[in-house]
């Protein structure tokens, strides 16, 4: 195993443990975490498998394919987060509006 494989594996395992400790809700969550972490570790240890998948979809290197997918995924996350920020801002606005300080000055 190369150094980068050790680092990446350690990270994936750490993130999986962290998520499990944070979420620790249903069996389904645990299963999901295990599947994703397992796939991550698998591809790190056997990088040639991603290359084979990459060739299948028409990309030269497995790393490139992962890179493209990661960009798409991150873009999706940014949009989701932005939508959530807007929703929060609207709720926040309503809150400030409900608590508006009103004074009617007379002549």
């Amino acid at each position, binding site marked *: 195993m190369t150094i980068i494989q050790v680092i990446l594996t350690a990270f994936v395992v750490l993130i999986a443990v962290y998520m499990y400790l944070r979420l620790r809700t249903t069996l389904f969550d645990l299963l999901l975490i295990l599947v994703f972490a397992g796939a991550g570790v698998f591809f790190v240890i056997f990088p040639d498998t991603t290359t084979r998948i990459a060739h299948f979809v028409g990309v030269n290197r497995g790393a490139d394919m992962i890179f493209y997918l990661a960009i798409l995924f991150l873009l999706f996350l940014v949009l989701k987060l932005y939508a959530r920020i807007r929703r929060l801002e609207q709720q926040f*606005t309503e809150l*400030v509006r409900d608590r508006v300080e009103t004074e009617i000055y007379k002549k």
Partner: protein
Amino acid sequence: MPASPQTIFVIIPCFNEASVIKDTVAGVLEKGYSVVVVDDASTDETKQLLHGFPVHYLRHRINLGQGAALQTGFDYAIRKGAAFLITFDADGQHFSGDIARMVETMEEKSVDIVFGSRFLEGSDSSVPPGRKWLLKTARYVNYFFSGILLSDAHNGFRCLSRKAAEKIRLRENRMAHASEILIQVAKLKLTYAEYPVKIHYTAYSMGKGQGNRHGLRILFELILYKLFR
């Protein structure tokens, strides 16, 4: 039938305009209109300065932006029985004398909303050249987003009927609200007209006004507005 001045609510959003707010408010009160000042969490002495003026003073506890301040003013004026709602800038660039003619225009043409314009004939506003091209571009940007082509893209002076104000709901808290109003007017199928208003450019209002940088930001906000409903 001319409207009673008290049912005309002039909504003045302001944020740190202490040096001019008194004159602006006094000018509007002179004509007998109801004045709603929406203080968007100013950190200056705006509040103390308005003591003694017969106005409705609303204050956001946290700064939200001009669009949010206008919506707060709309909600309030509707609750207080407004028949007409005027949006009016705090910095003294509008003339309170134009308000009556905006309302008249609305009644004559029986439209839901009247937009003030610097570029219609008879407006008598000397728009600084640097600002002209920006506003010309913005006009078409608004047209692209809303399908409404006004002669003036970004004028803070408007007159809304009660019906229009009840229907419009501004969700753009910051400066993109001016375009958002157009988008909603189109979507809600409200009728509109323009009226040539005088704009008094002062060093103060120019300093406070929006430059090209703001234009880009508004464009960005508009794109996001369209993306997220």
